[in-house]
């Protein structure tokens, strides 16, 4: 397993459901993001900070996918969310 991260929601975001879609809005720059189903689920799971490895395990179990593929997908998605300034990822040492 690769490196693990603790995933936080970033501060300064406003989120709301609009027409069944989860919308997160950056207060600083007014940029608005729409979340797909998986991102919406991860967002709900990180209401409290979570390890990426925990997220992966829960999602792999729920969607019955192979853990390695799931880990790669979750990592990519989180990196996208991080790049958009929606989440913060802090190093948490090696995954167990």
């Amino acid at each position: 397993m690769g490196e693990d991260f603790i995933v936080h929601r970033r501060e300064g975001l406003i989120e709301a459901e609009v027409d069944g879609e989860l919308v997160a809005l950056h207060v600083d720059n007014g940029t608005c993001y729409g979340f797909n189903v998986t991102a919406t689920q991860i967002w709900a799971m990180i209401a409290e900070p979570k390890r990426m490895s925990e997220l992966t395990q829960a999602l792999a179990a729920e969607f019955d996918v192979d853990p390695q593929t799931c880990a790669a997908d979750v990592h990519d998605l989180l990196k996208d969310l991080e790049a958009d300034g929606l989440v913060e990822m802090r190093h948490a040492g090696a995954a167990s």
Partner: protein
Amino acid sequence: MPDRYKLFGLCVEAELSLPELVPADDNQPADVAIRLGALPDGLTADSGASMADAAMVLNIPDVARYLISDGRDILVEALAGESERNIRLFLLGSAFGALLHQRGLLPLHANAIEVDGRAIGFLGHSGAGKSTIAAWFHDRGHPILADDVCVVTFGDDGRPLAHPGIPRFRLWRDALERRGGDADQYQRSFDGMDKYDVPTSLGPTRDPIALDRLYLLGKSEPDALLPAIRRLSGVAAVDALIANTYRGFYLRLMGGAARHATACIALARAIPIYTADRIWGHDCLDAEAMKLDAHARGVDETVITRAPAAG
């Protein structure tokens, strides 16, 4: 005694005459005071908008300087010899926009008309055709609720209300003449500009009315594949409101972006927002506006598609 007017639900007391506004008909205390005088020393001479503590300074070269503070006061320092028309244009535009943001109100960059007791708003940047469409509706008997800026608040039941703005529309000379008007009989919107203020002939609306829906005006090509009118949802709806907030960029200078974003989200949840792409040109105006008219009177989810082009 200063003159008193009603604008966006506020009672405005002004030391200069504002003939485009509706006179206040009651004795409620003034919410906004517009005074004439020199701005304090030491303020920036930079053109455009800037902050001086919590107040906003608006510096329009060759016209006037405005100091907007506390969501209540506008001090106007006019340049000697500048025409009142030009001074009023920026006073009732940008300066009032800053004041509305200071009050935490949501000013949309929209024209609004009244259809069967409900307000319909047309969102869009300058040049999107807001006035042209509003004028078309006006000429078919619909009162104009607001020109260029439409302030939206939420009632006790959470439903959005559109407040009466300036009861007029502004048209370019060619649009005026096509409508059968003589441009020389109207006031220019700005000295030297070939755009004219047209007062509404249907009488002003005095009370806020329920905002039913918004259309974001755009341009389409005759062979467009997407429906001309389609509903925006989720992010697209919220984005349309944020991007079409009047002088929304002032919020970056003065703060209040979080409150503004929350209001935009609440509005996107409360009413349908559509894009309305129309084919431009005076020859198409009637046909295109009739589609909007039919849509605005129809059921929410009706999507009007353009008939496929022959061939």
